């Protein structure tokens, strides 16, 4: 720690210009705070960015669809005015199979389902949407703390109870029954079609370290549905220019609100004086003072890296250290010389969200390999060809394919340096099964393993939620006990990233909740 601390030129420094950092900065600046956002990379967005991976080919670096950000946030920050446009909305989900026609699950009635599953699906979708809507208000505010006598905490718990009770007795019972279940059992109860089960289970395990049989997978599914329900009528949306366009619009909202953004300004450490965060020191050696520091980086990087264990208690450090934050999802980007043809998929749906998750057992087997430091020869994927809707992403006549791949371990036997090329070949071979001839179209490929995600986006462990979304790391104990409600044991230091409630995905709730919390604390002080 330096003896002389720089003067507080800002009210708040925000570390990281990922979407949560930008959202937090925008709300703080709109409330009149003097805010500076510091970003290590040359551009804003963090993992919500668009990058060129082969000359002429651009793709969303991380998430590739927008469907979780609350409508109210986009409206409050006027993202459309700041340039956000959509190349496509209401994308259908198309489950691909080797031996049968694809199954199309869109906003309307499903196609490709036979027998009682068709009706059961509509009933299931309505029920889950209702449950999601019940839980969604939890996303809107800091979770209550347990074991305090504060009125706000008690009211928070009461509100939660009331929201669940309002479902009516049968639905409340059902929510409480399924809440902690695994998605495998839930979908077995509702459906007999393995293809439908696989497609629905995929949403529960996407971005997690879970297979469909893992406990807590109904919770992850409900979280996704809760956010999706509040994101407006657009459904699965494809921003024009990729997810980087969302970040660019957020950055526009930040600067319009009067805050500054500095890129290529990596923070080396958080400065502390008199047991209070008082600014940051950049890697260049420059020191910037502020009254508070908010980090959108993950909890481990923030607390153990930038702040340092010496400023924290041992028990707390132990909890942060044990936070499960290894990623298991990877991104595959292909530059294609021509249009891939997914077998039996109607032309209108080739640009949809294509799933390779033909059954829950297929997913579970793909997950099994990951437990032993391997990836499955039959991986699960979520694929889109964004250039079908947004031709500017690829040179004329060419296409870009973006896929989220489950499950690629952080570490594999033999290491990723040796394993990368064989893995890409396995993934292309899997695609070839569903889009014959695609391998001959490949002009370039990029694979982002969890390790690459860790290095490129500075996310410890490379998990897109900055920490597993599981019961023991959820809601009032997220990320860890002692750092809930966006605060940390260090006065003046807050968290606003995906590691906090309600987690990752391009939502922005964490950033907005953190800003509200900081503003509330300021008012109280």
């Amino acid at each position, binding site marked *: 720690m330096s003896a002389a601390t720089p003067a507080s030129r800002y009210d708040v420094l925000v570390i990281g210009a990922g979407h949560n950092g930008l959202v937090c900065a925008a709300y703080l600046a709109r409330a009149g705070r003097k805010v500076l956002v510091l970003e290590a990379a040359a551009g804003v967005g963090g993992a919500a960015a668009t990058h060129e991976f082969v000359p002429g080919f651009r793709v969303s670096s991380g998430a590739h669809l927008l469907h979780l950000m609350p409508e109210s946030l986009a409206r409050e920050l006027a993202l459309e005015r700041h340039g956000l446009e959509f190349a496509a909305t209401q994308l259908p989900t198309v489950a691909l199979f080797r031996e049968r026609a694809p199954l199309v699950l869109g906003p309307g009635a499903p196609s490709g389902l036979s027998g009682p599953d068709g009706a059961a699906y509509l009933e299931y979708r309505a029920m889950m949407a209702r449950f999601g809507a019940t839980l969604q208000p939890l996303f809107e505010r800091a979770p209550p703390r347990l074991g305090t006598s504060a009125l706000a905490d008690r009211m928070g718990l009461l509100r939660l109870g009331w929201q669940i009770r309002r479902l009516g007795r049968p639905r409340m019972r059902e929510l409480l029954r399924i809440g902690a279940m695994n998605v495998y059992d839930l979908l077995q109860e509702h459906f007999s079609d393995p293809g439908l089960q696989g497609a629905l289970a995929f949403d529960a395990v996407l971005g997690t370290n879970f297979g469909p049989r893992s406990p807590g997978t109904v919770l992850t599914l409900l979280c996704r549905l809760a956010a999706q329900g509040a994101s407006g009528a657009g459904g699965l949306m494809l921003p024009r220019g990729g997810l980087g366009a969302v970040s660019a619009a957020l950055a526009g909202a930040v600067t319009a609100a009067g805050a500054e953004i500095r890129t290529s300004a990596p923070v080396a450490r958080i400065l502390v004086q008199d*047991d209070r965060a008082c600014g940051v020191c950049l890697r260049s050696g420059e020191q910037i003072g502020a009254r508070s520091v908010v980090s959108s980086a993950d909890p481990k990087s923030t607390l*153990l890296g930038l702040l*340092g*264990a*010496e*400023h*924290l*208690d*041992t*028990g*707390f*450090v*132990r909890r942060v*250290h044990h936070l499960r934050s290894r990623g298991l999802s990877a991104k595959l980007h292909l530059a294609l010389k021509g249009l891939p043809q997914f077998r039996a998929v109607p032309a209108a749906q080739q640009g949809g969200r294509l799933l390779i998750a033909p059954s829950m057992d297929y997913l579970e087997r793909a997950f099994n390999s990951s437990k032993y430091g391997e990836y499955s020869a039959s991986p699960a994927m979520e694929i889109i060809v964004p250039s079908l809707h947004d031709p500017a992403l690829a040179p004329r006549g060419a296409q870009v394919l973006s896929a989220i791949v489950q499950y690629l371990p952080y570490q594999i036997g033999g290491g990723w340096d040796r394993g990368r090329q064989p893995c890409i070949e396995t993934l292309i071979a899997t695609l070839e099964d569903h889009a014959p001839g695609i391998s001959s179209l490949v002009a370039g490929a990029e694979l982002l393993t969890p390790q690459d995600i860790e290095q490129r986006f500075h996310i410890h462990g490379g998990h897109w939620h900055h920490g597993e979304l599981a019961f023991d790391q959820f809601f009032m104990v997220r990320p860890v006990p*002692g750092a809930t409600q966006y605060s940390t*044991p260090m006065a003046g230091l807050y968290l606003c990233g995906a590691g906090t409630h309600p987690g990752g995905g391009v939502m922005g709730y964490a950033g907005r909740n953190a800003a509200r919390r900081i503003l509330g604390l300021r008012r109280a002080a």
Partner: protein
Amino acid sequence: MNGNSLPFFQQPLLKTPFHERARALCQVDSFVPWAGYTTVDVFTTVEQEYFAIRNSATLYDLTPMVKYRISGPDALRYLNRLVTRDVARIRPGRVGYCVWCNDSGHLIDDGTIFCLAEGEYRLCTAERQLDWLLDSALGFVVQIEEVTEHIAALALQGPTSCAVLKRLGLSGIERLKPFDIGHFQSGADALMISRTGFTGDLGYELWMDPAAAETLWDALMAAGGTRGVRPIGSQALNMARIEAGFLLPKLDFVSAERTLRTGRDRSPLELGLAWLVDFGKGHFTGRRSLLQEQQRGATRQLVGLDIEGNKPAHHALLYAEHARDHEVGSVMSATWSPTCKRNIALAMLAAPHFRTGSTVWADIYLNRELVWERRIARAVVVERPFYAPERRRVTPPADF
């Protein structure tokens, strides 16, 4: 059958390097387990051993004391984050008493830090702490190694202890000040000696290679002569440490990592160890909780009691002076102090009864030939230590 092949809960207690000598002298065959070792509770009679501590010199086998070697470039920063006092003030060649807490500011254990050289420390504790020490090392470049079995240790305590060491030929021993460390040669064996102890009297602790243990024991016993060297067990030591006002884990506090019931852990402020807590040195584990506790004010405190009569107030419940049905605390450790001729105890008392000079009532139970009797004795809160002879501090010590 080889003991090491058994699961840990079936393994016999370990024997210290002094075990054979101790067994030969232990007339009443009274052994107790301590940190996985078997150690002597009483050699002859408690009274005989106690009076030896206060009148001649005594040998006490300290080997089971758990010892950690802590070294590396961050050793000092690491220790300062671990314990509540400022370790930077423990210079090379010095020893410091310290305590460490969990996040909520409750005591995990107490111990002594030996600064052997810059960046080279030894931490001695009553109980095993490796788990906590390693977790505390996250983020620090420091090596932590348990060295308990590699070091044999003896406490030589009592007014004639310096004279005995001089008779052993350790020239310069008299120059050692309290909490100093010195290095000596006894015959062929290297010996590290610290002027420390658990009796509150003049005394030393001797640290050596286990291979040299028996030779040194024999040399010390022979060097005693008219100065009188006698081995003692834990019971006599316990009387002396209560007189000196020292705390013992499990008796005066339970490690916060081991309490099961809420409210059973204790903070250093409650244990009367506020002098060990340095809020100004920078962050340490438990600091924020302790600051809050300090601002709230203590709700209870460990204090010394002077109790009327001569019946030790073992485990006695304590009642308010003017409301004898109002329980305000209980006795942790108690003994009749033969040297002070006082009936003394360490007790935990609720506010405001812990103020020095306050009076409470002790409810003492006595078993007299299998008939239980009850005494309600007046007890006054007094300053600790109960017994602090000037000779414990004088350098060079007088030639008793």
